[in-house]
């Protein structure tokens, strides 16, 4: 027992925390989840900077094509459906982890992964198509901002899929240990947050871009 602990115990008695029945430090699951939540919020703040840059540069097409001439809303609708369903499948995996069912966990995670990969394939083809038509990120400030914003989300989804595969392997190899479950809690938060950011992207970039 160190001096600090003794001093802490003393001050607690002085303040009267002991009498109040203070429950002590929160369980690790809450601390981990809260810390990751703070990270996610900072990630959202970072995305808001990309959104601000996009909104500011929206009109700076340098004589090049605008969003309304480039975007294919049918593709965006399919992407949106894929990501939304994959978010739902991730929720199913959360339930499976909660009731400790490895089979359904792996099935739900595999569905999440496939839908996420489908999203990435469509997005990659859209980017390749834009670049082939001469509307790459170097064409205008508007397109730079567009590729930075949507590409940053795509990178997040790619990283999320790597994390997803890691979680499948860890649950397969180590089972539903408390530390694995904490990691999965963070992954589920990350995946749902990516879907929230996609809602902002398809509304602001694609729908507003083609309406205007």
């Amino acid at each position, binding site marked *: 027992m160190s001096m600090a602990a003794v001093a802490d115990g003393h001050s607690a008695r002085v303040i009267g925390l002991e009498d109040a029945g203070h429950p002590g430090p929160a369980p690790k699951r809450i601390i981990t989840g809260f810390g990751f939540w703070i990270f996610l919020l900072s990630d959202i703040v970072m995305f808001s900077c990309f959104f601000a840059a996009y909104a500011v540069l929206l009109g700076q097409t340098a004589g090049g094509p605008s969003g309304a001439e480039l975007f294919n809303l049918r593709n965006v609708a399919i992407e949106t459906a894929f990501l939304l369903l994959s978010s739902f499948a991730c929720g199913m995996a959360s339930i499976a982890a909660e009731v400790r069912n490895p089979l359904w966990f792996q099935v739900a995670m595999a569905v999440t992964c496939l839908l996420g990969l489908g999203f990435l394939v469509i997005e990659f083809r859209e980017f390749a198509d834009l670049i082939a038509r001469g509307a790459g990120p170097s064409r205008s400030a508007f397109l730079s901002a567009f590729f930075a914003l949507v590409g940053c989300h795509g990178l997040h989804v790619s990283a999320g899929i790597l994390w997803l595969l890691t979680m499948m392997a860890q649950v397969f190899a180590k089972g539903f240990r408390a530390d694995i479950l904490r990691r999965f809690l963070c992954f589920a938060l990350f995946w749902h947050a990516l879907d929230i950011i996609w809602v902002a992207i398809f*509304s602001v970039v694609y729908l507003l871009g083609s309406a205007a």
Partner: protein
Amino acid sequence: MSDSHGLPHLADLAPGDEEVVSVKLRLLGYLIGLGLAVLLTATSFFIAGTDLVWQPSIPVAIIVLAIAQMGVHLVFFLHITTGPDNANNVLALAFGLLIVFLVIAGSLWIMANLNHNMMPMDQIMQMQR
């Protein structure tokens, strides 16, 4: 540290954790969230492409629908609610939203002001000639 406590149902909830224990109710929550999200998304896509709505209202409608859908995702998928055990998570979210608002609104405001006060670019180029 406190892994022996197992899943906590003491005073606080980790973000993403739910109070409800029954699997049926959890499933129902995700299904409601999915249904609402599909409805809002479909409305957004419909409004963007239709001529049936008063045109100037479309951007506002799309943004309102997007904010509503983000709320649906937060409540039904991330389980960030207004319960007392969620106070810390909601406070962090509120601070994050404040920064997001300041960054976006501030950028738009400043750049609109700049564009308004600055001479058009082609005139500047002519003066430099």
